[in-house]
């Protein structure tokens, strides 16, 4: 039994992997369906509401997936990551692990990597399902742009995991870490909407997949891509530093 296997078992036996995959897969399946049939659904169940909208495009399929899946998926990722990384919340369990490793980093790295891998797999599965269904129902999407957008969204999710790790270094307990993370993400989102500085923040990457699928310019994401890429190791290193210095 290694720490890598421990983290894998944590995801599987607590059904957190199932929750992650379930959330993204569900919205991956339903997003394009909604995009394709919203007009019909409203006509049938909307109580006489008439919708005048242009016919849905393939980009709408992915956009619908992201619009629905982004918030709940992000919440699931934050909760799963906090449950894994806020291990000092239960002192006796923390003592068991902390007293048996040379460095706290030995504990953190498998936690972050395994959770990131599970998050990545779940998100890519959701995108894959949405992409396939979009192709069937609405038409083809530009593969290069979808892949680029997926990569940027994955980078943002990796940043979210780093923020959870940072929050676990500041607070103890799952709820406190999750709430701190959500507060940071909301603040970043608000800061991102305030002006030109927003293009440099990680929150600018949110929605990049939908935008690129609609002919957005990849160059618009270069600044936030570079900043996020630099911030992830910095936040993780800071988290490890904090967790190393913590009394348990």
């Amino acid at each position: 039994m290694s720490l890598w296997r421990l983290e894998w078992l944590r995801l599987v036996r607590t059904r957190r992997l199932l929750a992650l995959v379930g959330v993204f897969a569900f919205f991956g399946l339903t997003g394009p369906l909604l995009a394709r049939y919203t007009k019909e659904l409203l006509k049938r169940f909307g109580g006489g509401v008439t919708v005048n909208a242009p016919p849905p495009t393939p980009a709408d399929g992915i956009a619908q997936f992201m619009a629905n899946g982004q918030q709940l998926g992000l919440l699931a990722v934050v909760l799963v990551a906090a449950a894994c990384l806020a291990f000092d919340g239960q002192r006796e369990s923390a003592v068991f692990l902390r007293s048996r490793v040379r460095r706290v980093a030995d504990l953190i790295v498998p936690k972050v990597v395994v959770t990131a891998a599970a998050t990545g797999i779940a998100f890519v599965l959701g995108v894959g399902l949405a992409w396939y269904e979009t192709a069937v129902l609405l038409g083809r999407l530009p593969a290069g742009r979808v892949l680029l957008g997926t990569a940027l969204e994955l980078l943002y999710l990796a940043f979210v995991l780093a923020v959870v790790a940072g929050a676990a270094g500041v607070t103890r307990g799952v709820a406190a870490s999750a709430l701190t993370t959500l507060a940071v993400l909301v603040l970043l989102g608000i800061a991102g909407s305030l002006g030109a500085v927003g293009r440099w923040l990680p929150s600018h990457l949110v929605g990049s997949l939908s935008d690129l699928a609609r002919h957005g310019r990849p160059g618009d994401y270069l600044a936030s891509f570079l900043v996020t890429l630099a911030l992830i190791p910095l936040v993780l290193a800071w988290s490890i530093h904090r967790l190393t210095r913590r009394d348990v």
Partner: protein
Amino acid sequence: MTAAGPSLETSGLVKRYGGVLALAGVDLRVPEGSVCGLVGPNGAGKTTLLAILAGLRRPTAGTVRIAADRRGVAILPDTPQFDPWLSAREVVDLARALVAPGLPHGRVDEVLADAGLADDADRRVGGFSRGMLQRLGLAATVVGRPQVLLLDEPCSALDPAGRREVLDLVARLAGSATIVLSTHILADVQQVCDRVAVLRAGTLLFQGPLDELLIGRAAPAYVVRLRPPVEPVERALAAEPWVTGIERMGAVELRVEARSLEEAQRGLVRALTAAGAAVVAVEPAAADLERVFLEVTA
């Protein structure tokens, strides 16, 4: 017991939690291979001291020297907890893999059997009782054959049989590992420890061999067993000038404390005869750690 050199030594150890002083300059010295009972009232700083020795908390000041690699130091918290979805075997195997990956997997079954958990090895620990968790914690603590073992109240959740097993296990480890055992149960200290350290309010009041504490501190006393009536004898003994205290121990026993052992030896039998006591037995009172502990920490 071997007593080559200190396996574990602290110097001027201070720990503050904000304005609260948890340890006030502790100089603890535990020789290699000895079993040291760390005793003290609640809030004395025992858990803090063990956590610092295990490297889990940082001292505010002072130094810790342990003659062992970090992985050679194992700590058992007072209420061990593990991820509930792991089996007992997985918990112990994880501990083995982390601290002594070179040891064979068979070592896991060996310590589980020693802890009385062989039949529950493949059960998820989420369903374990507190006593089972404590025994599992002990198995996970000893699986790597640590050189220094820090046990925080290892018997606190155990029934008498479980407590006996744990004490036997500690006794078996004596000599091969240096053990610091924090406990409220002074009888446990008397059974398995060869040294004792008394901590109160973050200050080390005594440390040394258990015998030294008991012999040096206990007031000279005798236990007298009588046939009833006991009260007239008790009144007569209380009137003796060399008697410093009398305590009733049950219906027919008296504990008579004397100013000095010599005065008790010369005066006790004479006083009992003069009081017309029907004496069943007279014997020196055994040194009692609990009594000495209360005296030292008073």
